[in-house]
């Protein structure tokens, strides 16, 4: 098991390294950081000082190494807009985003998976077709259309819920609904096909031949096996908790990471963008690690072989 974990960690580290490199390349290729960071009005001596401080006159590989060193010491630079540390800006926003994405994830899991499983168990029934259609509708409607329509209905016409902002839990209802509907569709569809696949496996027939009640066949034999592929998708959703609400946050003026991304990108706030890239990639990689470990728990075949063998 140790080797398994070590290998996964090495893989995760490599991925992060690639992301760092990507950030470095994009940021270095997109113009002179000194000009961008200091603004077009900066006096020449300020530019020179900046270049010297960040080593912009060194060869590129040296800059890259320096950059890596800087990242390793958790120094992500300061925002060009108000000189505050980029990592602070990013961390400040994460709770707000999680306040949307975690409930949305729970909704996705609680509605999407049961719906998909139900559909798979009642294949070709009206309910099955209903689930398929609803789920496809769910994820084909662009979230910005859905969000605006929900606001129009529930905030403007019915006046039940606020239309935007972040003052109370009621403000979160519409963004969470908008966020979850697409995910519910995807998860329902995915769970359905995973479940159908599992239900066709010989061991299900074995369990039935044992005389196991159908409910137990589903709960004890089908679901634990169907969970393996579903976990992959759920892992991806967990990984997107931090970065998964860009559009929805814009519609509902929700001051989370998504808004920060859009604003920083629009302002070319390099330090913040790079910090965001890293934080998001790290969260994604963490989620992948969790998925890998979850695989190990769910599917003994994927565990490293015990020494006894």
């Amino acid at each position: 098991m140790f080797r398994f974990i070590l290998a996964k960690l090495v893989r995760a580290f490599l991925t992060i390294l690639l992301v760092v490199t990507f950030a470095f390349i994009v940021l270095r290729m997109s113009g002179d950081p000194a000009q961008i960071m200091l603004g077009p009005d900066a006096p020449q001596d300020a530019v020179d000082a900046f270049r010297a401080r960040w080593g912009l006159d060194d060869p590129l590989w040296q800059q890259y190494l320096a950059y890596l060193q800087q990242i390793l010491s958790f120094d992500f630079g300061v925002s060009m807009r108000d000189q505050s540390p980029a990592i602070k800006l990013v961390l400040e926003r994460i709770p707000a985003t999680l306040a949307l994405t975690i409930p949305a994830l729970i909704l996705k899991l609680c509605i999407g998976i049961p719906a998909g499983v139900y559909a798979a168990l009642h294949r070709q029934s009206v309910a099955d077709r209903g689930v398929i259609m609803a789920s496809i509708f769910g994820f084909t409607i662009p979230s910005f259309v859905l969000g605006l329509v929900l606001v129009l209905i529930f905030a403007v016409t019915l006046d039940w819920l606020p239309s935007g902002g972040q003052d109370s839990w009621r403000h979160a209802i519409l963004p969470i609904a908008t966020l979850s509907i697409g995910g519910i569709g995807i998860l329902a569809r995915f769970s359905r096909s995973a479940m159908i696949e599992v239900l066709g496996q010989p061991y299900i027939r074995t369990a039935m031949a044992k005389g196991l009640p159908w409910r137990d066949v589903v709960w004890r034999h089908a679901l634990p096996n169907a969970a393996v592929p579903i976990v992959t998708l759920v892992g991806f959703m967990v990984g997107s908790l931090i970065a998964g609400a860009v559009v929805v946050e814009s519609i509902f003026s929700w001051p989370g990471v998504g808004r920060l991304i859009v604003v920083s990108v629009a302002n070319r706030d390099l330090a913040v963008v790079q910090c965001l890239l890293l934080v998001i990639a790290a969260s994604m990689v963490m989620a992948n690690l969790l998925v890998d470990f979850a695989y190990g728990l769910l599917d003994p075949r994927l565990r490293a072989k015990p020494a006894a063998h």
Partner: protein
Amino acid sequence: MSILLDVRNVVQTYTTARTMFGRTSEIRAVDGIDLTVREGEILGIVGESGSGKSTLGRMLLGLETPSRGEVIYRGNPMPPPHSVEWRALRAHMQLIFQDPLAALDRRMTIARQIAEPLEIHGLAKGDALRNRVAELMAKVGLRKDQANRYPHELSGGQRQRVVIARALASAPRFLVCDEPVSALDVSIQAQVVNLLRDLQERERLTMVFISHDLKVVRNICDRVAVMYLGRVVEEAPSDQIFSDPRHPYTQALVSSIPRPGQGLSGRIVLSGEPPNPANRPTGCAFHPRCRFADAQCAATQPELQRHDGHLAACLKFVRARQFAA
């Protein structure tokens, strides 16, 4: 008969790398085999799954390079895989697989698949190609109107005929049949076995016939080698090996063949499973399952030795008669 292939002390080890940094473990699939294949004969190779028979077959064809030892084809060593000479050599030797459905491209008509070796080796073009394909199809008993069928539209036996036709397209001299009839129903099995026999006789092919089905091997082969855990434990002419097996393993194999109408009487039922090649027993690999084994067997690995026409690797030299009683 002249020697077509000479296998000299070949060893094949696979290293399994589970992870990027994990310790690699070695599996000896083939563990020191000397064997000759003579021109025009049918050599049978039998053994349980995991005994290394398929690996040996692939090395005979040069599809794999042994990690030790060498395979000499007509006096020359095998060229390294995927080299130009190696590719050219493919026209001279062919493999027939166990599962014809898997061995055929399901998105190509059978005529095109039969034509492939001819195209690859530039043996025929245009009308000549079409004629040759038609000729091959007739030879293996496929109807003309089946030329444009896809593999899934044919029955199992017909598919195996397609595979055979394709193997024969480049007029090879040497054929390795790896479990060619195991996936087929009994009634069809007989059709294919007959076909292989007829072709072998008609074309004077040299053939290595790998199978775990001893009845078929008995029926088609001139000579049989029995493998256990990567080694040949017994080798003898077909008639002798079945009527008078010497090695205890061969004896068990022969006795385990279910005979219609004979029940379970007179069988030697081996206890235990074939051991894992990654974790082979010391001494004679068969000793944990052998009813004659003693301490010596656990310590010393026996070499193949000649006993009236048989080559057997056993320290006990048990006579076959003992189990018949």
